[in-house]
């Protein structure tokens, strides 16, 4: 699985920092300091601009960012899960099953607001199943969500009998989600930035968000402090499921169709983004800021390599090396700080 399929975030990253600057003041700068990785992004953008005149154009910006929002939104949900020291391998399959469901609802004349509501509820439902298996069933997150990955994919293929489903005329009703833009900013990007900002706020400023950190950092301590750890963990997987559903909506409205293999392998992309963003797979440390930057880096790299006409096979090599470079740069800047 190429772990870096997603597009953009270049702008999402930028966007977000402006956005925070405006709404939260200073937060943006804290973000830069907090994530040495942000530096890596800036370097990458600079290099890109030099290498290709087509890189930092408004048009490229818009479409790259639109693309990135898809995996970027998955990564937002994944951040919650990973902060609780869990992992969600099923996001790609959830995206796939919701996408097929949404497409077929639209094609069979279900009014779009209802279709959207059902889709999101469904995503939440699958996430809830993950959450139950892990909390009540006591299954390791890796196992539970891996099983869900295969099960949901199998269900999708069965439901669609392996064939893509077209939205048909109804496509016009939902086109705005994938193709529309507001004040020049593509709707998917607004959703990505919006969700990102919201998630950031939840994690940073709400009791639930802090409990997510507490549970991931020291499960036992959280329990002994009267936090209902099951509730928190359960919540994280539901959020992840919802994010997957939202991505699905964007995909379907963008493509006016969905294939049953839609989203295959996205889980690794999403996890990679979160980890590149500096969130620890052992839980309790990291956050959304890094995830948004991570999404931006991954997206910028993919886009740049295509613009430069690097042949596909070599692209994979380049991607790997660039990601390594970015993370190493970050390590260097943070250097000792981590200490023991």
């Amino acid at each position, binding site marked *: 699985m190429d772990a870096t399929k997603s597009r953009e975030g270049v702008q999402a990253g930028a966007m977000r920092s402006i956005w925070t600057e405006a709404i939260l003041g200073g937060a943006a700068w804290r973000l830069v300091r907090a994530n040495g990785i942000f530096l890596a992004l800036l370097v990458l953008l600079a290099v890109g601009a030099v290498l290709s005149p087509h890189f930092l154009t408004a048009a490229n910006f818009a479409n790259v960012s639109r693309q990135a929002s898809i995996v970027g939104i998955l990564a937002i949900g994944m951040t919650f899960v990973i902060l609780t020291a869990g992992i969600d391998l099923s996001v790609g399959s959830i995206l796939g099953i919701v996408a097929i469901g949404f497409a077929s609802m639209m094609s069979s004349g279900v009014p779009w607001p209802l279709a959207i509501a059902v889709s999101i509820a469904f995503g939440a439902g699958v996430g809830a199943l993950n959450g139950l298996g892990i909390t009540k069933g006591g299954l390791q997150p890796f196992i539970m969500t891996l099983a869900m990955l295969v099960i949901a994919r199998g269900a999708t293929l069965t439901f669609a009998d392996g064939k893509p489903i077209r939205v048909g005329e109804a496509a016009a009703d939902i086109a705005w989600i994938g193709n529309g833009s507001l004040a020049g900013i593509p709707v998917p990007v607004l959703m990505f930035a919006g969700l990102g900002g919201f998630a950031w706020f939840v994690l940073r*400023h*709400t*009791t*639930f968000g*802090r*409990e997510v*950190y*507490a549970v991931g*950092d*020291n499960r*036992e*301590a*959280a*329990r*002994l*402090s*009267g*936090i*209902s750890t099951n509730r928190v963990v359960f919540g994280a997987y539901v959020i992840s499921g919802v994010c997957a559903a939202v991505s699905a909506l964007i995909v379907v409205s963008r493509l006016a169709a969905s294939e049953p293999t839609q989203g295959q392998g996205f889980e690794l992309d999403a996890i990679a983004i979160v980890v590149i963003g500096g969130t620890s797979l052992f839980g*309790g*440390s990291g956050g959304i800021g890094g995830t948004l930057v991570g999404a931006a880096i991954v997206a910028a790299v993919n886009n740049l390599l295509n613009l430069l006409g690097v042949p596909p096979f070599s692209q994979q090599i380049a991607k790997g090396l660039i990601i390594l470079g970015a993370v190493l740069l970050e390590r260097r800047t943070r250097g000792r700080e981590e200490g*023991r």
Partner: protein
Amino acid sequence: MMAAEFEPARPAAPALVMRGIAKAFPGAQALRGVDLAVAPGEIHGLVGENGAGKSTLVKILAGAYSRDAGDIEVAGQPVGSAGPAEMLARGVAVIYQEPALAPHLSVAENIFMGRLPSRRLGIVDWRRLIEETSVVSGRLGLDLRPRARVGSLSVARRQMVEIAKALSRDARLIVLDEPSAVLADAELQGLFTVMRRLTERGVAFIYISHRLNEVFQITDRVTVMKDGRVVATGPTAGMTAPRLVGLMVGRELGADRERTPNRGRIALRVEGLTRRGVLDDVSFEVAAGEILGIAGLAGSGRTEVLRAIHGADPIDAGTIEVFGRATPIRSPRDAIGLGIGLLTEDRKADGLMLGQAVAFNVTIGKLSEVATRGLISQRRERRVVEEYVARLDIRTAGIGARIRNLSGGNQQKAIFARWLNADCRILLIDEPTRGVDVGAKAEIHRLLAELADRGVAIVMVSSELPEVLAVSDRILVMREGRITAELDRSEATEERIMLHATRHDG
């Protein structure tokens, strides 16, 4: 709500009644029908050997463990099978023996974990959080930086955070499981003052400690446990130390015997050891066969000295000579190669491998002792470890039992065994008897003396002055990363040590 609620007079209902509490673990019957009653406003001491069942009893009271049998009444209300959340709601707060904190979160968030002050929609009120934290730590006379990451704190300060966490809940019954294990006297007195203030308002305490002087100083009544049973309970006034020890250990203890050190050649010489912000030009030497004690308040840098010598932390300046040869020590591996061992103060964080067996934890310090050409001889390991288990009286279901399941004090003994097994020429020991019962403590002190007599050079950090005075041949006092005094055992007294540990001119 706190101030409003409690009535200065003692209410009728006892704060806590436990009847016939029993708890079995695979391989260990921890509790065999324990009865315990605590009146409001009472400070109830709970003592007993390592493994007697104190912490288990506490965890059952806290709702952390489920009980096999027995009833619990809190403030007259019977308690069914309740989890930690419910017990906290019922006003039972616990300071656990093993700090249960989230290292990546701030001091403030840890103190208020699970009850962060928030506006509607569950939005955290950070200003209030910081304020209330400062208030709490002020009220307890602890200087804690609310925003400091708990992971960056010394063990002592982590313990303080635990204390603040429990005392800041408006609890009616507060349990302290060996809060003093790493606290130096100053911090301890602060804690006692606060406890007394709270008892005025009818708050009850259960105070667990292996330091009997504390028990006599602070508790109204005391209960003695042994092998999961209560063997005695009554007013502290009617107790004497020897009797208490007798009840706990089942035998009288000889006082630590005087030893006349035969100082050999200089084993360790430290020159101008400096680590920015933590250590400032620390110099001293230890001879083979000598026990050097280091005293000081929490945060004074004692631990950092040991870690620096052991190569655990990088140093900014200074030289270290081992048996006359100046040798750069870049890592603990180097240190151990030179025969320098470090028994860390925080056994859970950087001592134990919790998931592994007792034997594993003992031999990991020097596997070559039980292996030939990389192959471990199970027989040799068994022999070696069982010897230590017997010698240190480590209470365990077997040397194959997971060390996680041992009582705190027994874990400490196991780690001690690790360094005995590594037979070092220089032994750095941070809080050697943390959480160890009186019997075992005497045993460990004897061991230290024995090691010294065998020519081992020992540097010992302890927050317990009596221990420092009892064991050391020479005593260094530290303050704010500097050595402020060197006292010979003959001239050293608690007062003089405290003077140098706290006074603020040179």
